[in-house]
């Protein structure tokens, strides 16, 4: 049985207690997307500014559990200021890390088709930096939807802006 320390790593608790990039950007011009996790009633609002092929700014609002909130916070820190192709790549890598069980779970209704996940061996966990702390979530299958909620919502936002997948 996996232990709680696999799930609640210190970095996760830190981002949960002091989330980065909280709030909403003014929309418009920012793109605003909402995601829902019907399992727990979590709601997330992602607002993003895309400028010159770069994810210039991102903010996260909404409520949720420690896993969904910290994943959103970690995500915002990782993608802010990054070129869009890198953002897409990071989403694919993160979803790949989470995909081990996700395909067997019901859809979370967060919108956006599931990202085509790379082969597990192709996932470069090191490239994820602090995000790798969320790796332990896959041992708790019901919580995977919590971790991927913000990422699916971001994907939906990028799709709306017309960023090529």
């Amino acid at each position, binding site marked *: *049985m996996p*232990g*709680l320390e696999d*799930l*609640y790593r210190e970095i996760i*608790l830190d981002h949960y207690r002091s989330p980065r990039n909280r709030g909403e950007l003014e929309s418009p011009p920012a793109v605003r997307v909402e995601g829902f996790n019907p*399992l*727990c*009633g*979590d*709601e997330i609002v992602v607002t993003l500014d895309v400028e010159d092929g770069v994810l210039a700014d991102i903010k996260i609002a909404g*409520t*949720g*559990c*420690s*896993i969904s*909130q910290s994943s959103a916070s970690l995500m915002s820190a990782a993608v802010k200021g990054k070129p869009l192709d890198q953002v897409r790549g990071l989403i694919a890598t993160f979803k790949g890390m989470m995909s081990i069980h996700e395909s067997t779970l019901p859809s979370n209704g967060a919108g956006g088709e599931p990202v085509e996940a790379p082969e597990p061996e192709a996932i470069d966990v090191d490239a994820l930096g602090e995000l790798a702390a969320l790796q332990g979530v896959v041992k*708790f299958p019901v*919580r995977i939807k*919590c971790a991927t909620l913000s990422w699916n919502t971001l994907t939906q936002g990028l799709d709306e802006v017309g960023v090529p997948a």
Partner: protein
Amino acid sequence: MAELTPATTEPSLDAATLAKDFPLLAREVHGRRITYLDSAASSQRPTAVLDAMREYDETTHANVHRGVYSIAEEATRRFEAARANVGRFIGAPHPAREIVFTKNATEALNLVAHAWGRTHLQRGDVVVLTEMEHHANIVPWHMLAAERGIELRWLPIDDDGRLVLDDLDRVLDGAKVLGITCMSNVLGTLNPVAELSAAAHAAGAVVVADACQSVPHLPTDVTALGVDLLAFSAHKMLGPTGIGVLWGRESLLESLPPFLGGGEMILDVRKDGFTPNDIPWRFEAGTPPITEAIGLGAAVDYLDAVGMEAVRAHEIALTGYALGALGDRFGDDIRIFGPPEAEARGGVISFAFRDIHPHDISQILDEYGVCVRAGHHCAKPLMRRLGVNATARASLALYNDEHDVDSLVEALDAAGRFFA
């Protein structure tokens, strides 16, 4: 003439002894004895139920109703006896004719919306629901509203989770249906069903009761409740999954068209049409959940042997203990939803604890072997009214005791320290 006063014996039960009848409760999780506090979602089954189903399967199973050979006849007799037993358990005036077996309570409520609703409701008609209904008694009406253009009206609750009845006459004015839960699966609130039924009938409405949470925990008498239709699920009352019950007043059921079509529900089928069967089979298309009906019958026998008065008395005492223990230990750190008095509610205790998300609470509690539910409990309109996305919910049953409540309190304390 001297009057003899009979010695009054308070109904009682010993939960720790009863718990031994439930094999699952002997299980360990993460190296600790399991503390099962999620009976409102689904209860555990006693050996008597498991054995009855196995014995039936091993000795008697055949399809019901059409067979002429011995075991088919026996299977039919046992299936119909289970039906009558369930009817008797809830005080049905005509137990053999008024109990319809469905897949679960949700299907029973869909049956009502479909068969009754489509026969009787037209554009502009009003269906009144309470703010504390489970989605199972909301969504079928929403679907009908979309199709028929009927109006949904809501009976509000107050901050203690009780129905506000001040404006009842106005809300019921012109209503064709009152859909009401006997006991909230989130707040534990026991609603004044008999009073509401009388008011609804005076307004000309039919009363559809969701008794999922009340039938397993309180003595039930459909005549005293005064409702017209009543739904519940076997898996919340010590029985198996896969079978639910719709009780309906005989005359009302007789007036209804079928729900699903197929075998069992017909008297005759011709190339130019069909003749529906008599009640209750008219509403039971296809092979019914036979083994499950045997299991439900055994669950009813088990509850009868314990005594529903004793179950209720036990749960009032234990709920009172739990409310007290949680309040004493956590004070303002815990917000318990629903009425504060144990007598006004069942053993369903939803709460918010500090600002820890219910999902995280439930995850930490699991580490201590404590099973509670976290989420919206299929009552999203109620969640919105309470101003939360989700709650944690501990729910009690006849096999729980003070030791279980103490385990909950200790595990919650640990969750508080973890997220401090």
